[in-house]
């Protein structure tokens, strides 16, 4: 079965492709998908691909309204049907997404980090629970052993970090991991992995982990360093 809606991130913004199915079904699915990760998509600009579906001005306006409600803007419509072109031009939308070659399939990871922003999570992350987010992650609460946070950007744990944390998961070696009490099972930054010594210990102050000279270094989280 082909998906009703596919959503891809590119350096140009999001590309939403509508599959086959009634307009209501497909748009309903699109709205649901976007709303489920609203904070992730907010602020994005959207190019719509409709294939050979014929889109009216009203239909495009309806989609535009949904996107606007979710904090996104529709800037282009790509479709094969002539009436789609006419409708898009009427609304002063671009009709040619890719003057050159068709885009390489991209994943949400290709959205630049600056556009991601961050999320704030207010709870205890227990064993088996995970947060995977392409931007920065701030957690108010503890990360218990067996839980993990994987972030494209930085990770700040306002509590005890006793599980796993992976910052810069898409390769950003500048990313940092901060915790009020840094007692992780394992931390990773970019492609580096570190685990604490086998003896038990209890940190006395908030700590910050970063990559220095090709390895993860954990030190006191100083006020001066923001």
């Amino acid at each position: 079965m082909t998906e009703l809606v596919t959503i891809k991130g590119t350096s140009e913004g999001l590309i939403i492709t509508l599959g086959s199915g009634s307009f209501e079904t497909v748009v309903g699915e699109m709205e649901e998908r976007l709303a489920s990760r609203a904070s992730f998509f907010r602020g994005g600009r959207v190019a719509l691909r409709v294939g050979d579906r014929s889109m009216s001005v009203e239909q495009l306006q309806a989609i535009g309204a949904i996107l606007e409600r979710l904090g996104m803007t529709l800037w282009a419509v790509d479709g094969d049907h002539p009436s789609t072109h006419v409708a898009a031009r009427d609304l002063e939308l671009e009709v040619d997404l890719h003057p050159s070659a068709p885009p390489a399939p991209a994943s949400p990871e290709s959205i630049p980090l600056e556009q991601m922003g961050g999320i704030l999570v207010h709870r205890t992350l227990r064993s088996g629970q995970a947060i995977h987010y392409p931007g920065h992650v701030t957690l108010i609460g503890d990360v218990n052993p067996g839980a993990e946070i994987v972030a494209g950007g930085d990770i700040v744990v306002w509590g005890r970090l006793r599980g796993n944390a992976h910052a810069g998961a898409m390769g950003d070696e500048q990313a940092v991991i901060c915790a009020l009490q840094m007692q992780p099972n394992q931390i990773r930054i970019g492609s580096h992995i570190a685990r604490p010594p086998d003896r038990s210990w209890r940190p006395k102050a908030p700590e910050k982990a970063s990559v220095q000279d090709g390895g993860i270094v954990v030190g006191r989280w100083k006020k001066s360093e923001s």
Partner: protein
Amino acid sequence: MAATVVTVTSGKGGVGKTTVTANLSVALAMLGQRVIAVDTDIGLRNLDVVMGLENRIVYDLVDAVEGRCRLRQAFIRDKRLSELYLLPAAQTRDKSAVNPEQMIKLCNQLRPEFDFVFIDSPAGIEQGYRNAVAPADRVLIVTTPEVSAVRDADRIVGLVEAEDKGPAKLIINRLNPAMVRREEMLSTVDVVEILAIDLIGVIPEDPAVIVSTNRGSPVSLDGRSPSGQAFRNIAGRLMGQDIPIMPIKESANVLDRLSRFLRG
């Protein structure tokens, strides 16, 4: 040389599957065997904690099955025994992440590299159990001398008999000789009589097990503890050595009889 795949299961939770898996793996590795312990309790993994290897996990069983890493990359070498490895379960997934066919395939890849593949089964009789038992050459059933645990073990014996795995062997865990003497606990004889399968070992109740589990250092490594000795004996039996079951003094002696008589 091809490994023997041994699955440790019980039906009931909390009877000591993971402790048995860790300790038999350690004991066999101490006997010079090449051993890998595989945790199939996806989502509720523990074997890594009991073996003290939790913070070394990079890839896990599910990563290997789904092709995110090569199988060898998911092996964790034990920090004490160079011939012992762990293949950990994933924690953020669930039992449906692998199926029995994948487990059989995975174990066939492990067979040429080891002498023993130990599989720690999750509790229950659902998919996790089926994943664990599917690749087994031999099945070890763990029970404690409690009616509920024995009942569940009986269910498992029936399930294993229905498959072509050869006769399952029984391990009785946490036997308290003093309680048996006072007739407050099922005895070895009682349990074997109910289950009617071969006994391969009896582990006495031993506080050292709790200490060693918390430290991530299996009790088999401890030369002095009675439970460690019991595990090493089972390991020897798995290798075909003829070691008699340790005599745990269960029958009432004169003093017990007298005290029971006095208490009325």
